């Protein structure tokens, strides 16, 4: 029996050690076996997904070299949010948006998007759920919430939100999301699902030992780096946002100044008819130019919104990181617990000491098989610990692995796309400006030789 206990004991230690390694290097483990989100896992009841992330590993280990060769395996779910429309239902008026996916088109309002966000947030705490656009309280107070400007800005943010979810390997396949995209009896279904979601959440909280104030014993360099990076990104984005705000305001003022100047020129042409032949084309040109400037400004404002959304996104990242830290904390606490159990077990199995002798005798009297009881108890303890460990491990693996990967991929793609969008539009409007001015010069120079440099 002692041997049995010894071997069992050894096994226990092995498991402890290996899982220790697993904590430090979740990525290496993952390269060998796909992580499976089992149905026993408390995260989701419905989905059982095999996700192969082996080819994505290369992305975060060779970051600097992958600039030209990084693969962007994004599931091609094309989702669009368009056509905001004012609707009245019972007592309330609201704006509804057309959500168009590959199979279906449905109408949803802002509250529905809020529901989707919350339910995903509750059910996938390890994933970075993209943030929703601001509630824009100021516009509500001012009564501007039906203005074209406001709805357009919101539409863009909502489209981005949905697209990010669609692209996410886990969230994009979540039942809630699919229900959101396709269900026609949405309102009944949504409240049902919400209730379920809330119940599930209760279980998970009960299990974990929340201890906000203690620090984890073995901080992982990778996650510290991630956190630092998020902080840095947030700082950068904040500064960028402030500078953009100032620049845009200045640009807006510049547009107004140009308009005033154009008005002055009009006044001059009224006073001096001799000037009219060339003032009039210039005034027309300036008006066109100012129009284009305003367009450019709108594009810049959209860019600002993108930046804001990004900042919210990084907030989410930080929250998930915090959660991860807590999980690790739990893990460490449980490991300690495991150690103490194991020690107990050893003591229990050693049969030395008066206390155990008496217990054994008592058990004999009772007619129970002491050994069997002991073994059963040991087994139960082992199983318990193993379960817990596995659960923790898996959560760590998944959250870090996926989230990290997704963040990188998302950042890359989004930045790219945003930059591209920004510049394409800027190019477009700039091109129009040049043409406008060319026309002005041609009109001004009239019959004379036109400077070949400007043709």
């Amino acid at each position, binding site marked *: 029996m002692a041997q049995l206990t010894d071997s069992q004991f050894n096994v226990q230690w092995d498991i402890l050690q290996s899982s220790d390694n697993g904590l430090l290097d979740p990525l290496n483990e993952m390269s060998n076996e796909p992580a499976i989100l089992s149905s026993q896992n408390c995260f989701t009841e419905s989905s059982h997904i095999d996700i192969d992330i082996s080819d994505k590993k290369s992305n975060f280990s060779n970051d600097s070299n992958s600039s030209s060769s990084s693969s962007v395996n994004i599931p091609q779910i094309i989702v669009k949010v368009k056509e905001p429309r004012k609707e009245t239902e019972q007592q309330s008026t609201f704006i509804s948006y057309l959500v168009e996916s590959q199979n279906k088109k449905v109408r949803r309002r802002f509250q529905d998007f809020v529901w989707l966000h919350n339910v995903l947030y509750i059910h996938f705490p390890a994933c970075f759920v993209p943030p929703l656009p601001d509630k824009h309280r100021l516009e509500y107070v001012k009564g501007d919430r039906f203005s074209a400007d406001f709805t357009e800005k919101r539409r863009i943010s909502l489209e981005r939100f949905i697209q990010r979810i669609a692209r996410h390997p886990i969230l994009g396949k979540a039942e809630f999301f699919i229900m959101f995209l396709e269900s026609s009896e949405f309102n009944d279904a949504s409240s049902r699902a919400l209730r379920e979601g809330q119940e599930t959440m209760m279980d998970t909280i009960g299990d974990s030992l929340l201890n906000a104030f203690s620090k984890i014993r073995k901080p992982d360099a990778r996650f510290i780096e991630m956190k630092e990076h998020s902080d840095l990104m947030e700082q950068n984005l904040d*500064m960028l946002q402030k500078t953009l705000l100032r620049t845009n305001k*200045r640009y807006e003022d510049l547009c107004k100044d140009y308009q005033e100047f154009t008005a002055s020129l009009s006044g001059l042409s009224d006073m001096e008819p001799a000037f009219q032949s060339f003032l009039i084309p210039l005034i027309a040109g300036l008006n066109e130019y100012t129009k284009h400037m305003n367009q450019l400004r709108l594009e810049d404002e959209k860019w600002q919104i993108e930046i804001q959304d990004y900042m919210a996104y990084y907030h989410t990242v930080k929250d998930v990181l915090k959660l991860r830290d807590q999980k690790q904390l739990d893990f460490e606490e449980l490991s300690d617990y495991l150690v103490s159990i194991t020690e107990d077990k050893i003591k229990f199995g050693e049969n030395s000491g008066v206390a155990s002798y008496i217990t054994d005798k008592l058990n004999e009297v009772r007619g129970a098989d002491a050994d069997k009881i002991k073994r059963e108890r040991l087994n139960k303890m082992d199983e318990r610990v193993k379960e817990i460990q596995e659960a923790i491990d898996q959560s760590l693996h998944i959250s870090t692995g996926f989230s990290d990967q997704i963040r990188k991929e998302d950042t890359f793609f989004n930045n*790219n796309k945003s930059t591209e969008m920004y510049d394409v539009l800027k*190019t477009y409007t700039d091109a129009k400006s040049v043409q406008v001015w060319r026309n002005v010069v041609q009109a*001004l120079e009239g019959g004379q030789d036109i400077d070949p440099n400007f043709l």
Partner: protein
Amino acid sequence: MSNRNSLKPTCDCAIDRALHRDENYIFITGAQKQSDSPSGKSYIAYYIRIGVNDIETKRRYSEFESFRKALTLLHPALIVPPIPEKHSLVDYAALQTRVKDDLPMVEKRKRMLQTFLNRVAKHPELGKDHVFHRFLESGGSWSDVLHSPPLSTLPKNPLQMVISKQPDVQAHTFNAVLSSNLIPTPSAAYQLKNPDPRFEESEKFTFRIANYMSNNLDKSQRKVIRRLGELANDYAELGAVYNGFSLNETGAVANAIEKVGQAVDASYTETGQMVTSLEGEFAEPIQEHAQFAQIIKQVLKFRHMKHAQVEMIENTLNNKKDTLDNLLRMENEAKRLEEAMTRERTIGANAVNVDEINQTEDENPYRTMSNSSSSTVRLDRPSSSGNWSGGPMKVISAVGHTLQNIIDVNPEATRRNQIGMSKDAMGVLQEALDITKPDLAAISTELQADLDRFQTEKIQDMRDMLIAYAKIHIRYCQKVLYYYSKLDMITNILLIEP
């Protein structure tokens, strides 16, 4: 060498040849801080060169100012181009630097002074003025020019000068006739009896446009330029933020952000460039034309005053004529009476109170004379009781006459004095009228010609300015477009690669 009167024929000096025969452009090639003595205050000297010749001199701002003033005094009826304004007290307070230490200001002055000199050279009258040539002469001291004719003989009041070429009269210099006390000086409030309709229109129009240019157009265009400058600085900061951002990212993202940062940096440079170009090619000419409007106001005012002067001379002349006529009539009457009296005395019959007759006779001329409105006709007899009637007046006039008879021993001599003086005055006035009337006509013609010439120049200038404005904007858009399209290519490449 000193041709003070003639304007049309040139002095044919070296400078004149360089400017007009060879049609050289005047350059201000540099500005340097220097001081006259080691302990003296320093100033900026502007180096002037004509074409590619060796003719080069240097002048400081105060000399330019003095030169321009001289031109306006020499040619009050011509439109003398403006020079950049003096640094006002307000500017000193705001900037707390002297102009000589403010580089952009010095650059601006260089540009504007150069434009000034070339405009003067191009002017059909001013360009030929030898004072101008002496200003441009190398080694010539400006104070020498100031203290030699024609500048030294200029009257303080340009109305006391003859401008057009006339026989026996020297122009552009102190004229004795016009400076005499007899010639009236019009006040600014004088209303013309026969105003010239063309110039009335011009005056109204010029007043309106001078106002508009300074208060409306100049202000709004300056605002645009200032705001563009601020925007350029914003772009510089934005570019720095983007560049910092790119350092914290890796891979393709970093590349993209860096390129955006570069494009924004380019925007900063180009916007700054646009501001400088707009300043030189648009803002300064607008300022110049605002100043021109004020100058034209002044010139028109001068012509108005000249016209007023002529009218007043004519009035005075007519009044004097009336006076003289009356005096002569009186003289004749007196002679007649004397003859009559002498005859009667010899007859010796009816003794007539000669004095009484004289007195009653005398009263009448007073009456007519006092009716005239001329204020410059002064007589020794202050009595002006002619119009009044009634008892008390008779007493006063009696007293007056008694007093006069006490003072004025010899009314005849006085009267003859007066006749002589009136004749002299009339002579002077007539001479003045003979000078000023044709002068006014010449001035009006010349001024109208200058206005027309200026209007053509203004239209051309305006057109050039506006084209420059448009071209500067084109250049700006093209450059910015170029940088942003480079960006577009890179991001496309990043997306295409598998």
